Every structure is written in C-alpha cells, then in structure tokens.
C-alpha cells in the first residue's frame, strides 16, 4: 500500500517553502503545494479499496517495550479526514498566496502550515495511540505558531498563548487517558483497542478514561466551557482560520470522539455528558454569534455552535446519529472554509471586518457576494444545499433519541431554536455585509479580489451545491465507509435523498427558518437586550488566572528555596532520617547470626584514635589548620584500618588520596580566614544540628553493624572464581576494576576528568587577596624554596616514579594498579612543585595536564573499542602468556593498557587541580629580613 508514505510526504515538505522562499511568491506556493498534492494522489489511489469497506494497517516496531510502534491505518474515517485536510489544505495554500502581503514572510507561513498539515494527517492516520498523541501535541504547537504568525500584534500573541494553554492542557489529559486505556487493553494499537469495547466499559477505570478523553476532545474542538479560546484565535491570518478553525484543528477533537466511538460510546454516561455538552455549546454558540460585529467573530461562534451540533449528534444514542455527525463534518468543513475565505477576501479588499462599517458590498464585489451568500445559506440549512441535508438528518435523530427519558422532547425543541439562531446569524452575515445601505468609513473602496484568490471559494461553493443536490452519488460511498469505521459494525439502512416527504424534520426546518427570520427582523430590541449584559473579555480573565498561578508558584518557590544552604542541608539530612528510621524500628534486632571477631588491643587503640581524631576535628574546626592536622590523623588511621581488614589496595588508595586532599586543603586554606568566627552560629541551630547529626550517626552505625553481622551471599564468588581464568590476574580487586566492571571504571575516570576540567575553569581568572602575615601577625619566612628540601625532593623523584611504576605494573596480580600508581606519580610531581615552585616545574614539564586526561581517556576508550575489531563486545579483555629467552614466561593483557589510561587520567586530573591552584599566588610578597 502507498498510504504509508502519506504522512511523510508533507513532513519532507516542511522545509521546501523555506528553501524556495527566495524565488517569487507563486513559485514558492507551487513548490509547497507539490508534496501535499502527491500525498492526495496517493490517497485517491487507495480510495477505491477503502470505499469497499476495507481497513488497512501497517506498522514498524519502534520501541516495543513501551508498546510504541510507528504504525498507520487507512479506513473510511481516516480517508475522509485526509481528503479534507489535503484538499482544503491545497486550496488554502493557493488562497494564502494572494492573501499574504509582501511584508509577510511567506516561506515561514507555508512552513508552519505544512507542519500543521503533517500533524493532522498523523492524527487521522495513526494506528498507535501514543503516536496519535504525539501528532496531537504537534497540532497544538504548530497552531500556536500559525495563530501568532503576526507576532507584532499583542492580540495574536495572547490568543495564540491561550489556544496553546487550553489545547495543550487537554492534550496532557488525553495522554493520561491514552496510557490508562492502553494499560487496560494491554496494547496501544488502535485495531486492538477498537475491538475491546466490553473489556473497557466493564473496567473500573472506564469513567476516568472517558473523562480524560472527553477533556482532550472538548478542549480541542472548543466545547463549552473551553470554547473561549477559539474566538481569540481569530487574530490569526484568515487562511489559518479557514484551515484550522473550519476543517482541521477543531475537527481533531470530533475526530477523536468518532475514532474512539466504538470503544467508549454506548454507555449512559457517554450519551448524557456528550449530548448535553454538545447541546449547550450549540445554543451558546448560535446565540452569541448573532451579536458579533466582527465577521470572523461571527464565524468563530457559528463554528463553535456547529461543533456543538456534531458533538450532540455523536452523543445521541442512535446509530444514524453517528452517520449524521460524519455527514455534517464533511458539510461544515466545506461551507465554513468557503465562508472564512470569503470573509478574508472582504477584509482584504475593503480593509475592515466590522459589520457596522461593511454594508452594501453587493455592488462592489457581486461574485464574491454570491458565493458567500450560497455558502451562508448552506450554513443556515436552506434546501438544495449540503447544510440542509445534514441538518435534516440531525433533526430526525433528535426526534428518536431517548436519553433524557421523559424529558427527551426538550432536545428537538432546543435544536430547533438553535437552528433558528443559525438562520438568524446567517441572515445577518448576508444582509449586513452585502446590502443594508452603503459602506461607512472604509479606508479603501472595496473591489473584487484577484482571479485566483476566488478560485478556492468557487470550488468549495460548487461542492456545496453538488453535494446538496446529488448527495447519494457524491459523498454517499465516502459517508458509508467513514460511518462504517465509526460504528465498527454493518450500517443500518438510511437514504441520502433530499426529499423524504412531509415530516416533522421538514416542519422543524421550516420553523427554524421562520424563527430565524423573525429573530433577525426583531434584532434591534435583541441587541439592546444583549447590551444590558456586561461584556466579558475572556482574554483578561484568562491572563489574570495565569498571572495568579505564576504568583502562587513564585510564593511557594520562595518559601521552599530561601537560598540558605544550611537549611537545605538540614532538611536533606532530616528527610533522610525520616525515611530511613521507620524501617529500622521494625527490625527486632540489629545483631545478626554472623560470627564476630574478638576485639583486640590494636583495634581498640585504633578505634580510640579514630573517635578522638574526628572529635578533635569538630572541636578545633574553628582553628582550621589544626582541624586539618586532625583530619590527616583520621585519614591515616582509616587507611591502616583498610590494611588491617585485608584490603591493601584500599589502604594504598586511601593514603594517597588523603595526602592529596591535605595538600589541596592547605592550598585553599591560604586564601581563607585561619579561624572561623564562633559567635555567628545560633545556639538553637547548634543544638538542632547536633541532634540531627548524632541521630544519623546512630542510624548509620546500626545499619553498618546489621550489615556486618548478618550472613550475606555475595556475588563475589564469581569474580574470585573467574579472575584468573577470565581476567588473567590474581588481584581480584584490580581485575574487577579494569576487566569485569571496566565500563564503570571508564565512566568514573570520565567523571574525574570532567570534574578536573570544571575546576580548571572555576580557577580561571580567580582573584584572591594574598595574606602577607600569618594569623598571629608574623611575616612570612624569606626563603621560598628551602635548599635541603629542594635537593632531596629532586633526588627522591626517581625513587617515587620507580615505586609508582612498580605499583602500576604489578597491579594486575598484586595490590596496586592504575589509580594508586597515578596518585603516587602526581604526589611525586606535587612534591617537586612544593620544593621548587611553579616556574621551575613549568620549565621542565612543558606539556599541559589537559593532554594527560585526554590521552588517558582515549587510551581507555581505544582499548575498549579494540575488542570490537575481534567481534567482541566493548571492553572485552584479552590476555595471553608468552615466553622469551632469559626473561622467561610473562603475561600480556589488554587490561594493562586500560589501566594505563586510568593512570594517565588520574595524573592529569590531580595535577590539573593542584598545579593550577598553586599558580594562583603572585610572585613577590612581603617577608621578614628582606635585605
């Protein structure tokens, strides 16, 4: 089937207008129209098969786990809508070519228009609900862009924002509904969903699903109480209104109702809610339309009322009602599009849309006037026009529904009244604009539009007539197949004849027309009566609501985000406490069954040292240097603890990191006050923090104890078993790092590199004041680089490097490895910085440390990618044993290269941080004994 390409052709077409914009306007319009025309051709190509009542689906798996497929379907309904979208779309393209002025950026307009067309096609052809929702949101966005096309006018901006807010919110509701429905049915494919009506309607979620779907549909097609965005969307250029607000965008909601009619409809709730909403919207729209002085305003409200009519039909509990709804969708699209275009022509050629100024245009633009009159007659439901047929069916259905029980007779009556108002505002449209005296205060004298600007209107009006006179031959088959898709089972008998003999519907039509005449003749008192009510501007109310939301959000935000880190930290700890503590309360005992080691003296001393050290750190935290000394004591004891509990690698790492940290903090401390002012902290805060900290400490301690004493079955047996055979190393820790969990390590060194670079940027151009005295007021010592220290450090450097190389090489089989070796090397270099200063080092180490990081990461990555060359997954390690004369048997492993990458990255990161921090200080400072 070819239809699969239909949604993609316009998608490709989106960029074409932007490319062809630099040529003249007609070329641009033609190029733009090309792909939609092609798509239309494809649809027509597949039309016959669909008219035979077949439905096709095609899908490509996209994200199966989410039930998200790229999947399209072609059945009666989607064909009907695709024809409307593409057909009217093409006409609008032609129309807009003449409507847009030289100032407007045509390419941009067409680009938005085609984007919107793509979105609509996607909606009507989607066979997957999530995909449908995606296109649904795309329509909201593109319509926002279209409505705000004239972004210089604040009305356009406000109207667009309003439309986006309402329809976007509806879209979110729809998404929720779709997800619920998908969960209930177990699939997001429409062809599955549409055939599981019982399942869904029996399900407890049914009400939720229904209400969410209705929210989506009603917001989109401007049903009460969400109708107010549509009139404000009239700030858009008229082609947009003709396209969006007659045929497509507002019909999307109707389409949704029709599409899901088989699943959701048929219950009492559906009938009552949908029909009453539709009825009320119908009346409200019809009534309000009469009093609008703006042409497009009138049309907007009449659109609202017609949408209400269609919704009402979908809500009536007879099958023919659904058919009538489909029929009216077609008819309304046709005549309303032509009316909008006519209004656009009038606006374009006479410079005004105000019906109080526009009068008697008949003698200026007779052809346009005729067209407009025919179209509005069809809107009024005058016989021999398509509007009449569907309205006739509508009246018929209102008679044999029974949703309001004994009050069901109200519906036909109200429907007739609505019809009367429709006749009235159609009359007003005709009479006020084309007759009724002379135009008042127009800026320019009206005249006929350019030839081809009128062509679309002519085509559409011709359609009105043809459909109105020969319904069965024109739209009959299409209507059948579409209704088949909506009802999802064989159609009942119905005839599209114009004449059904004298019956109540005919009488109702007559009444409506007569009533309309009566209303229009007595319009003056009616207008006066209407004038008594205060005019409500939805825009102001809406903006007010938005502002209120924003203010509220800001207030909440300010109460939560006071900007005090202490508060954040406190609440963080507090909630961590609140979340962790309760489960622990349920535990009856923390001591598990695991056998414990007896305590011995050394450990006791170490524990005492640890506790004393941490306590001293807290106590002397005001004298920062001393706190640092205490901290280094703690670090030392911690690393000895690691060594004692048989983790030599950790001991080595901890030691090196501890020294590096101390050096870092010393470097930083130089720029900070040496003492923390004590008076600043509130006693209440002190107590509060003390409580929280100690509580958390207790919890961590008890968890730790429970962990250690409870028996655990670790996955480590695997690592221990496979370290030698799989990783080719006997130091399991290192093998895990560079082989089993190599990917983690890769990520970690990447983080290390990123952190170092971030620090580098933070240090850049940082200006801090140098202290010339220490905090007791002594001047600094004179000799920058004590001779002995320099000499010895220099002579120790080879030793350092030798040791780090040794630790690196043996890392795979004995404690050691890239991390530790890297740290040792960087400490060795830092020692040189310390003893000789930055200048001395920069003379000797010319390469910048960024390269270390880069080379290290690249090395690690290449090692990983290398395994691809042998068809292995990323970072599969390789090792083998070789033997050379004299050297003997030795091992080569790819993990060693990876470890080299780690090594380089660590060096680069550490030195990038420390060396740059060291460079911050100026050369010369005041010192004692300067001679």
């Amino acid at each position, binding site marked *: 089937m070819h239809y699969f390409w239909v949604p993609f052709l316009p998608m490709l077409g989106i960029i074409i207008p932007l490319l062809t914009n630099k040529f003249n306007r007609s070329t641009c319009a033609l190029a733009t129209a090309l792909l939609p025309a092609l798509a239309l051709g494809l649809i027509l190509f597949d039309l016959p098969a669909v008219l035979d009542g077949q439905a096709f689906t095609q899908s490509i798996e996209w994200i199966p786990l989410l039930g998200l497929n790229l999947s399209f379907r072609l059945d009666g309904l989607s064909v009907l809508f695709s024809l409307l979208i593409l057909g009217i779309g093409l006409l609008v393209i032609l129309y807009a070519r003449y409507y847009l002025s030289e100032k407007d950026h045509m390419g941009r307009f067409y680009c938005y228009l085609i984007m919107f067309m793509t979105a609509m096609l996607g909606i009507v052809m989607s066979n997957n609900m999530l995909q449908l929702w995606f296109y649904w949101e795309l329509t909201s966005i593109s319509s926002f862009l279209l409505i705000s096309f004239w972004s210089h006018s604040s009305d356009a901006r406000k109207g667009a924002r309003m439309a986006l807010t309402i329809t976007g919110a509806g879209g979110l509701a729809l998404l929720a509904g779709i997800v619920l429905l998908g969960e209930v049915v177990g699939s997001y494919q429409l062809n599955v969903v549409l055939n599981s009506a019982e399942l869904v309607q029996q399900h407890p979620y049914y009400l939720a699903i229904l209400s969410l779907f209705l929210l989506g549909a009603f917001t989109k097609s401007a049903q009460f109480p969400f109708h107010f965005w549509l009139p404000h969307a009239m700030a858009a250029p008229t082609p947009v209104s003709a396209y969006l607000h007659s045929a497509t965008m507002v019909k999307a909601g109707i389409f949704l109702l029709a599409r899901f009619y088989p699943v959701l409809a048929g219950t009492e709730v559906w009938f009552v809610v949908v029909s009453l909403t539709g009825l009320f919207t119908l009346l409200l729209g019809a009534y309000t339309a009469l009093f609008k002085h703006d042409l497009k305003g009138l049309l907007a409200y009449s659109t609202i009322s017609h949408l209400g009519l269609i919704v009402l039909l979908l809500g009536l509990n007879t099958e023919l009602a659904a058919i009538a709804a489909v029929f009216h969708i077609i008819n309304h699209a046709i005549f309303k599009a032509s009316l909008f275009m006519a209004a656009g022509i009038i606006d374009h050629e006479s410079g005004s849309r105000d019906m109080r100024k526009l009068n008697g245009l008949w003698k200026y633009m007779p052809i346009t006037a005729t067209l407009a009159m025919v179209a509005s007659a069809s809107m009024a439901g005058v016989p021999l026009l398509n509007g009449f047929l569907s309205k006739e069916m509508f009246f018929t259905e209102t008679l044999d529904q029974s949703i309001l029980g004994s009050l069901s007779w109200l519906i036909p009556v109200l429907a007739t009244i609505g019809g009367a108002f429709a006749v009235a505002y159609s009359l007003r449209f005709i009479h006020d604009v084309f007759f009724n005296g002379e135009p008042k205060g127009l800026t320019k004298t009206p005249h006929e539009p350019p030839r081809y600007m009128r062509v679309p209107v002519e085509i559409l009006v011709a359609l009105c007539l043809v459909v109105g006179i020969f319904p069965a031959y024109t739209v009959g088959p299409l209507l059948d197949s579409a209704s088949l898709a909506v009802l999802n089972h064989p159609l009942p008998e119905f005839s599209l004849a114009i004449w059904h003999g004298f019956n109540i519907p005919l009488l109702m039509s007559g009444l409506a027309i007569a009533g309309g005449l009566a209303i229009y003749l007595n319009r003056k008192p009616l207008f006066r009566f209407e004038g008594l009510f205060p005019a409500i501007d939805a825009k102001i109310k809406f903006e007010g609501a938005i502002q209120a939301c924003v203010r509220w959000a800001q207030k909440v935000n300010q109460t939560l985000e006071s900007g005090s880190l202490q508060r954040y930290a406190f609440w963080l700890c507090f909630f961590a406490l609140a979340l962790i503590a309760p489960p622990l309360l349920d535990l009856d005992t923390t001591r598990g069954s695991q056998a414990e080691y007896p305590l011995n003296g050394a450990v006791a001393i170490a524990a005492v040292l640890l506790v004393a050290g941490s306590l001293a750190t807290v106590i002397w935290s005001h004298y920062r240097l*001393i706190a640092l000394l205490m901290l280094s004591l703690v670090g030392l004891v911690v690393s000895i603890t690691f*060594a004692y509990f048989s983790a030599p690698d950790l001991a080595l790492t901890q030691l090196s990191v501890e020294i590096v940290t101390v050096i870092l903090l010393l470097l930083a*401390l130089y720029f900070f006050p040496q003492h923390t002012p004590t008076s600043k902290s509130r006693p209440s805060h002190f107590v509060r923090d003390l409580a929280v900290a100690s509580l958390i400490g207790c919890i961590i301690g008890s968890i730790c104890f429970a962990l250690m004493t409870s028996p655990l079955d670790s996955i480590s047996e695997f690592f221990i078993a496979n370290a030698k055979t799989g990783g080719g190393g006997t130091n399991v820790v290192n093998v895990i790092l560079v082989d089993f969990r190599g990917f983690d390590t890769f990520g970690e060194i990447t983080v290390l590199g990123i952190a170092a670079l971030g620090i580098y940027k933070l240090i850049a151009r940082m200006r801090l004041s140098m202290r010339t005295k220490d905090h007791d007021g002594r001047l600094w010592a004179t000799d920058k680089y004590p001779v002995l220290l320099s000499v010895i450090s220099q002579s120790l450097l080879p030793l350092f490097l030798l040791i780090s190389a040794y630790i690196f090489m043996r890392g795979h089989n004995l404690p*050691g490895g890239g991390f530790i070796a890297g740290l040792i090397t960087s400490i060795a270099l830092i020692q040189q910085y310390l003893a000789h200063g930055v200048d001395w080092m920069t003379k000797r180490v010319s390469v910048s440390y960024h390269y270390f990081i880069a080379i290290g990461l690249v090395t690690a990555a290449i090692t990983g990618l290398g395994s691809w060359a042998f068809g292995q997954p990323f970072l599969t390690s390789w090792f083998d044993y070789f033997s050379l004369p004299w050297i003997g048997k030795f091992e080569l492993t790819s993990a060693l290269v990876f470890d080299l990458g780690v090594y380089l990255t660590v060096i680069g990161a550490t030195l990038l941080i420390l060396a740059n921090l060291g460079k911050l200080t100026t050369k010369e400072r005041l010192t004692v004994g300067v001679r």
Partner: protein
Amino acid sequence: MLSYATLFASGLICIALALNAWRLIVGPTTPDRIIAVDTMYINSIALIILLGLYQGTTSYYESALLIALLGFVSTAAFCKYLLRGDIIE
C-alpha cells in the same frame, strides 16, 4: 616466641601512638602537632610491618612504603604552610 615478640612490640607501638595522639591534641603549638603527626606516620609504618610479620605475609609492604613516602610529603607541606602560607608558589 616470635608471635609473642610481635604482639609485645605492637603493644608498645600502640602505646607510642597513643602518646603521639596525646601530644597532637594538647599541642600546645601547631608545630608540636605537626611533629606528633609525623611521628604517628613513622609509628604506623612499624605497626604495619609488625602486622605483616604477625600474619606472615608481605602484602602490607607497599602500605608501609607508601606511608613512609607520604608522611614525608605531608610533613613538608605543613611546614611549608607555616613558613610561607602558600605551599606551591
């Protein structure tokens, strides 16, 4: 006999460590504390070597070596801080 000797020795070292910690905490001056930390480094080397002897394994050797190296570096860094305030200049 060897194990007893090791235990006895490590007991003495622990006492030594405790004494150093005492000096570290009472001060009185910062240089005193630095000496204390430096001495603790050296003592812990001994402790770790004794641990290795006691368990008859050489896998703690590197830790001892590293402590020796790094203790020196950190002492140097602290002294440099007292002397110049800015340890890398």
